[in-house]
């Protein structure tokens, strides 16, 4: 085929372009942002804005340094999505410096090093958040709540606050857990907001369900076994509390549903979700909650290309494109 228009192949005619997908992600995260601002006020809003702006700036700066295209008709909206995701996975009393460290690591190490938007094999937001959790765990203990929380407080954005002793989440009622009315990472607490965002992504075709569904089902199925082995006890309440309060639902919808870093095929997607859930359950007994939640995501990110390759090779079905299904 001749290249008469002077543009490079492939010629894909679909409205689901990369900017479209990322914009739907941004829109899907709006309810979680509203939740975080409602409960934590001004500092949550500033934290989200700061992470988004600095992520864009870091990407542009790296793009300039590496000589990649950073201007023109394409605006990399993935930077905004990653910035927002990082902010939503931070505790409310995180300083801007810590947030900046997460953003810079995410942008530089996990995105630009691999070639920028769309080329990263790891979920950059997940990696950035995990990096600060491992590097400065004490800086990420600022879960101010109820009387200690103020919607107008801004001090914690600059000065590191004393770690806040989290109450026993199992004491919280189901209504509180579902509504997000409990201390946690600013955007990961409200189940209804996360589900609303997920439904929006599915309706827009910007999310594959294979991994998220298999991930949640794995946790639900194997949680009793894991807790019986680790703690010798199991309660359904404990499982519900874990599922609602650990951030697992946020991870399932917004990290495992990612089109760039997760396997594209059904079998590999399901496998990745199961592995991720399994690793989460195994590691939650000896790692910190955030690490046990995010490290498995990165692990399956690494695996996704391999999984897709084997899935494609072994499958007898007709080879399909890795592009988004437009039907």
């Amino acid at each position: 085929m001749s290249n008469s228009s002077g543009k490079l192949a492939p010629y894909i005619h679909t409205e689901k372009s990369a900017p479209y997908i990322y914009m739907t992600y941004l829109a899907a995260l709006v309810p979680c942002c509203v939740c975080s601002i409602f409960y934590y006020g001004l500092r949550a809003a500033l934290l989200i804005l700061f992470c988004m702006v600095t992520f864009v700036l870091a990407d542009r700066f790296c793009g300039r340094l590496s000589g990649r295209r950073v201007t023109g008709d394409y605006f990399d909206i993935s930077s905004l999505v990653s910035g927002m995701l990082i902010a939503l996975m931070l505790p409310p009393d995180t300083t801007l410096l810590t947030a900046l460290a997460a953003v810079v690591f995410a942008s530089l190490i996990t995105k630009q090093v691999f070639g920028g938007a769309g080329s990263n094999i790891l979920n950059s937001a997940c990696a950035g958040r995990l990096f600060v959790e491992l590097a400065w765990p004490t800086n990420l203990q600022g879960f101010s709540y109820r009387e200690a929380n103020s919607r107008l407080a801004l001090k914690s954005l600059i000065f590191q606050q004393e770690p806040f002793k989290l109450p026993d989440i199992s004491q919280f009622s189901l209504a509180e857990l579902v509504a997000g009315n409990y201390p946690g990472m600013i955007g990961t607490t409200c189940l209804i907001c996360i589900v609303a965002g997920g439904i929006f992504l599915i309706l827009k075709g910007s999310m594959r369900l294979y991994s998220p569904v298999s991930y949640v089902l794995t946790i639900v199925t194997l949680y009793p076994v894991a807790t019986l082995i680790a703690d010798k006890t199991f309660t359904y309440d404990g499982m519900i509390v874990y599922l609602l309060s650990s951030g697992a639902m946020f991870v399932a919808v917004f990290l495992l549903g990612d089109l760039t870093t997760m396997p594209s095929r059904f079998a590999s997607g399901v496998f990745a979700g199961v592995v991720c859930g399994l690793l989460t359950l195994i590691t939650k007994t000896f790692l910190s909650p955030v690490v046990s939640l995010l490290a498995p995501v990165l692990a399956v990110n690494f695996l996704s290309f391999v999984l897709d390759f084997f899935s494609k090779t072994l499958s007898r079905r007709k080879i399909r494109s890795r592009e988004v299904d437009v039907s």
Partner: protein
Amino acid sequence: MMTRSQLKKFITEVVLLFILGAAIVIAGYFISQNNAEKRVQSEYHTRFDSVLDSYSYKKVKSKALEDFPEIDGVYIGYSATGIAEGYVIDLTVKSLSEQDLSMLVALDYESTRVVGLTLNPGNGENDYTISDSEMELIRETVIGRQIPIAFETEDSSEDDDASDKVAITGLHDGVYYAQRLFDDRNKYIDYVEMEVSNGVITKVKWDAFSTDKTNQDRSEASLRGAYEISGLDWATQSYNLCHALLECQNPDNLAMKSNGTTDIVDGVTCDIRPFVELAKECINNAKAGYDKDDYMNGINAMLTSLYDKNSEDLGYTNSDGHIVFSFEKTPEIYTIYNDDEVAVGVLEVRQIEAKIRGASDPSLSLPDAQDNGDASGNDISSGEYDYSEDGLTSGGDADEQIFTDSLDDLPMSEMASFIEPAPDCYEQTRTVVKACNTCYKFLKEYMNWKV
């Protein structure tokens, strides 16, 4: 890139998602808030019931807490009707051996007496441990005592049990009242209202109403800046003084100096003479069972004797029920004269009423001008030195009454109770006392913030 129509659609979707998110979050918050409140109260009950069994608890948010890093939380316990019953203070103090003792101290809301003590579970290697039996002995020693507390051996005054000795006995329960019979130069008439329960003064209020009915009461005027004095605003000083009287239970212990000031009540720089005199009158009324209603009837009797009309008829009763009238133009009705027609003191309303009615009740009898110069028990004519008017507490020699020592950064003169350490538990008792005194220091600062 996206087309204009796609962008429009996207913005619409974002707005809809924003509205949806806001609706979800706000509805979720209000639905779950009731559960949250119940859960929090349940947690508080689990923690605090052993020290202060209240219907509900509310955590205190105060900037004063910033100065007390040892205090982890302060809570106020309320009854079912919403009346404050006491404080629960969660704190960690250092023992003499620099170990951490974490405990809950519960205090009565009005009298700040210790009503409960319990140890929190330890959570570190440097925990100071007190056994259950030792804690029981300490509870027996400390509970019921008013804070701040000191050991008897640490009191340089050698007063074995000052807190018990200074308390006035023979008070009848009820609400008692006294007001000045003449206004001051700012046209204010001071009054003190006192409540006695179980023979103990449990509530004291000192304020002044203006003879100009268009003016506010003095406390309100001071808070609004219309009545200014040096130091803290008058309302705060009044509050501190009332609180000090609740602690010491005897106006003599306020150590009023000859110029009408006191050094032992923090933040009080104003003239406390009206308060001390009216408080003494209230106490005398409490001993005689002459309550507020009787007092009002007494003033009405005075008015009737002068003008043949009571305060209602004369229009001197204000909306608060106070009789707003100054007897300054008829001083003969309340002044005590000696044989040389020299004024030597003033009569209390109870005594004036007795004089008017000609009662033979000994409690209502007139004082002898020779023996009771100021009608409050202080002998003016005899020349005996009045210790209560020189910054010292009453009773004993002046040399012995000068307090120079301090405990837990509190002057000994401020101590409300003196105790013996629990047997064989000196350090343990001392650490618990330190916790109680820390509570006192916080409450002092917190009250200033609040008023």
